[in-house]
């Protein structure tokens, strides 16, 4: 071995080169990580320590036509928890359930929410009671990661009257989350489920804000204020509707607990939906923050089926209210005018293959079309139907829009049923299973004809105005109207006159109201296995229609029942309008 100083110095020089080289590499590695890749690591470090806590945005307020509140937001509280893993979430839930009651189903729900979005706090209570909040707030230190925050809660001041119209909101379902329409939604957020809340979800949805909390390596919240600037939630502009809340309430009161049916009221000129009600109704406020399963079950098994929205999806044989369609088709074809008599006077029945009865066994005698409308004479319309013929009657019904949905801005509207052509009967009953006598039934609004109150209201709106059918609109926007009646002014005027006669002298005479001219038509529809449904479709005032209203009362026995209800509602609306105008004029 050599320890000569020269040899040692040579080795020392080599060692120094190695030292410099090593430290250059090491320094270079730190330069790369700290200076070149700094931004990337800053993000990772922020991701480590910051957890985003969503600040739920309030949904848009919904107003009626007079600026009365239909839907608003009340302060509420939500309880959620941040967890690193599913196991720790489960154990936290177990501990929490010793302090406040958390049903097993709620716990499962929280776990499912966690799986959907692991970095977001999993919601335990969407709408926690004040008692739960105060208990948890008191013992907050025991539950790291627990987040209690205010969360606006939907409220409908007239919730019980609004089920058919407004619908309700609820937590977005797992099915919906996977749909492209809801791709911007996150588990646990509130979404419109039915009705207007669903239809106008995009406009009503508030922009969620967010704040940040700082967590440590064990996901415990260390700081929950001033960690990073908050983004406040943004409420969307309010939604203005054509609804007349007073009329809606009145309809609710009128139907009460005993009547079943539906009512739709439109502004005949604009199609603005003044009221849309289905009975029995239920309080939609009970759906907010998650409907209780017992309440929902009671609605589901109720024999009166409150969950069915009769105004939109209830299809009923329109019965005599449809006779106006037959009359108009005949007039359009030039077959009749309001003064035309039929060959055979009414003696209480008509023979065609078999006897077709008139509703009045005594018979109406020899009547004109106008009188036939007023008295709702079936025999007259049997003959008119035969005169028109099945093919032309079907085509006429199609062009009057009885096969089309109205296009109302509400979800799940049911398209009415009306045969497009005779092929329908071949298909449905077989080529020999029916005969041309079906035209008699169709002419009086029975047989294969099923209309919603909304579609009938739309048809009568066309008759009430200039033959243009408006698209029903709940939310205020530009009216859309479509010509469906091809009658000249005189013909239209004669139709309107005949309709006014129904209330002044005809089947709805008992429903007339002093100082108010109402035009409309009753209908009494036979339904197998239950009592007759009562219809009234009409408008008022007859000379300058402000409201067109279609009402059906299930098992209401006779159209006059419906007519009484309809006139009361129209009066309510028009009188309130008069008062309103008077106040404005003061």
């Amino acid at each position, binding site marked *: *071995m*050599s*320890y000569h*100083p*020269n*040899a*040692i*110095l040579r*080795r*020392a020089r080599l*060692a*120094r080169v190695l*030292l*410099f080289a*090593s*430290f250059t590499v*090491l*320094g270079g*590695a*730190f*330069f790369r*990580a*700290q*200076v070149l*890749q*700094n931004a*990337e*690591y*800053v993000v*990772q*470090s922020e991701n*480590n*320590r910051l957890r985003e806590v969503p600040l739920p945005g309030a949904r848009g307020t919904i107003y009626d036509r007079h600026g009365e509140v239909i839907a608003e937001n009340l302060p509420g509280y939500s309880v959620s928890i941040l967890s690193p893993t599913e196991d720790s979430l489960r154990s936290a839930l177990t501990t929490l359930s010793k302090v406040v009651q958390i049903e097993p189903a709620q716990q499962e729900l929280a776990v499912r929410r966690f799986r959907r979005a692991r970095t977001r706090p999993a919601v335990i209570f969407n709408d926690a009671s004040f008692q739960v909040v105060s208990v948890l707030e008191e013992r907050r230190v025991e539950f790291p990661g627990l987040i209690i925050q205010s969360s606006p809660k939907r409220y409908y001041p007239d919730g019980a009257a609004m089920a058919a119209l407004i619908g309700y909101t609820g937590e977005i379902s797992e099915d919906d989350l996977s749909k492209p329409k809801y791709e911007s939604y996150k588990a646990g957020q509130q979404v419109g489920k039915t009705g207007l809340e669903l239809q106008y979800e995009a406009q009503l949805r508030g922009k969620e804000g967010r704040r940040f909390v*700082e*967590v*440590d*390596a*064990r996901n*415990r919240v*260390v*700081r929950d204020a001033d960690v990073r600037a908050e983004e406040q939630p943004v409420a969307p502009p309010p939604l203005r509707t054509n609804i007349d809340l007073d009329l809606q309430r009145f309809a609710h009161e009128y139907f009460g607990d005993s009547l079943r049916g539906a009512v739709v009221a439109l502004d005949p000129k604009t199609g603005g939906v003044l009221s849309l009600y289905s009975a029995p109704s239920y309080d939609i406020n009970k759906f907010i923050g998650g409907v209780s399963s017992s309440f929902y079950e009671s609605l589901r098994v109720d024999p009166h089926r409150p969950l069915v929205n009769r105004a939109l999806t209830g299809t009923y044989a329109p019965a005599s209210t449809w006779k106006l369609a037959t009359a108009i088709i005949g007039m359009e074809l030039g077959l009749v005018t309001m003064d035309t008599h039929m060959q055979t006077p009414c003696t209480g029945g008509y023979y065609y293959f078999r006897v077709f009865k008139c509703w009045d066994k005594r018979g109406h005698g020899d009547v004109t079309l106008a009188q036939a409308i007023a008295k709702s004479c079936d025999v007259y319309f049997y003959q008119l139907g035969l005169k028109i013929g099945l093919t032309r009657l079907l085509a006429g019904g199609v062009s009057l829009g009885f096969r089309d949905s109205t296009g109302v801005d509400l979800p799940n509207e049911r398209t009415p049923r009306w045969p497009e052509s005779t092929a329908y009967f071949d298909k449905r009953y077989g080529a020999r299973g029916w005969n041309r006598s079906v035209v008699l039934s169709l002419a009086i609004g029975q047989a294969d004809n099923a209309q919603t109150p909304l579609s009938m209201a739309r048809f009568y709106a066309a008759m009430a105005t200039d033959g243009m059918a408006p698209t029903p609109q709940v939310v205020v926007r530009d009216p859309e109207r479509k010509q469906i009646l091809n009658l000249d002014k005189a013909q239209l005027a004669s139709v309107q006159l005949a309709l006014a006669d129904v209330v002044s002298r005809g089947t709805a005479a008992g429903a007339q109201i002093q100082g108010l001219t109402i035009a409309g038509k009753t209908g009494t529809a036979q339904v197998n296995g239950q009592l007759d449904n009562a219809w009234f479709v009409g408008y008022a005032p007859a000379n300058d229609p402000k409201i067109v209203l279609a009402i059906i009362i299930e098992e209401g026995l006779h159209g006059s029942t419906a007519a009484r209800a309809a006139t009361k509602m129209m009066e309510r609306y028009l009188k309130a309008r008069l008062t309103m105008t008077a106040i404005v004029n003061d």
Partner: protein
Amino acid sequence: MPGISSLRRQSIDLPLLVIALLLTGFGIAMVFSAGQIDSPTPIIENAWKRQLGWFGAALMATWVISRGSVRFIEWSAWPLYALSCALLVLVLFVGTGAGTAASVKGWLTIGGVRIGQPAELAKLATTLMLARVLAAQRESVRSLVDLWRPLLVVGVPWLLVMAQPDLGTGIVFIGICFAMLFWAGVPWPLLLLLASPGISLVLAFSTGVWGAWFLVLVALVLWYRPYLLEGIAIVLMNVIMGGVAPILWDKLKPYQQKRLLVFLDPSVDPQASGYHVTQSKVAIGSGGLFGNGFTLGSQKRLKFLPERHTDFIFSVVGEELGFIGVSIALSLFLALFLRTTRVASRANDAFPSLVAFGLVSAWFVHVMVNVGMTLNLMPVTGIPLPFFSYGGSFLLVSWTAVAVLLRISAEGRGQPDAIGL
């Protein structure tokens, strides 16, 4: 002029002392910062005070040792070596684990109190012993067989340490061994031949790379022409190592395998084994140029960074003081090593020269492995950072080394021109 000469002998290597003091001050400051977390525990919060106490003790030991003589140090090599080997054997039976090396039986514990790690003492003692053996061996080395004595001196404690099993300290022993053989003038081809079985073992995981290495080795043997038997033995060793590597891999404990795999790719196990390294990189990388400020590192405060005051203390430097702080720390280490190398090259005899270089090599391996580990340049082996990592016995041993170096420096030659360069 004997008067000047004797004055120099009594003088202190001020740069060396200052650098060591600066490093220790920096280190204790970082131990203090490591204790400043959002939900502090008193033990770690007060660690810096205990470290300061140990530093006081270390300074006293340093004063005592630096008053002694190199002769005494040389004399003490044997008993120290024997003692540390005995302790290493003892610790195999009664040792306990700690920190990232919880399953390693490295600590001597009496009554629940951890006294220290015999491996720390063994590093120092082995360095002294190796220096003695190498200094005594004056004839030039032509064969690996000639190296049996130094290899035995390192081999015994190395095997005992590996039996703990403490891979990190094992690496330090190998580093010390090769550095001192190099300093003693063992020709580099011989060092390469000596290292070849180990290199084969590492490269065996890729058949192609191992094949290439094997060709290089054969060429080296043919060129350097060691004794025939020795050459055959080395080639054979390499073949065996290449063959047994997969078997050895299976014999590694799962956590050891994981650490090696995680070193190759920390994302294989980001939550468990890779967690330390990943969080350390995030801490360092987020520090940027100037850092988040002393005691203000969020990764540290929120405990994302593990082993903040011990093995990963350098990550705290990176997070809180940024690239500037890292550069200062690394510069201090580089300065220490350059100064120590200077001490080694100016020692007045082979023994102190070898001791000095052995000590610098031990520190060097510690710094490279520990600091490299924080950026995943080295596997996580759990060896501490000299002067920084919290731990009394290690600080004491580090300052003992400083004391020895101060003594050697004091007895060393003056200017390089004094020996005619």
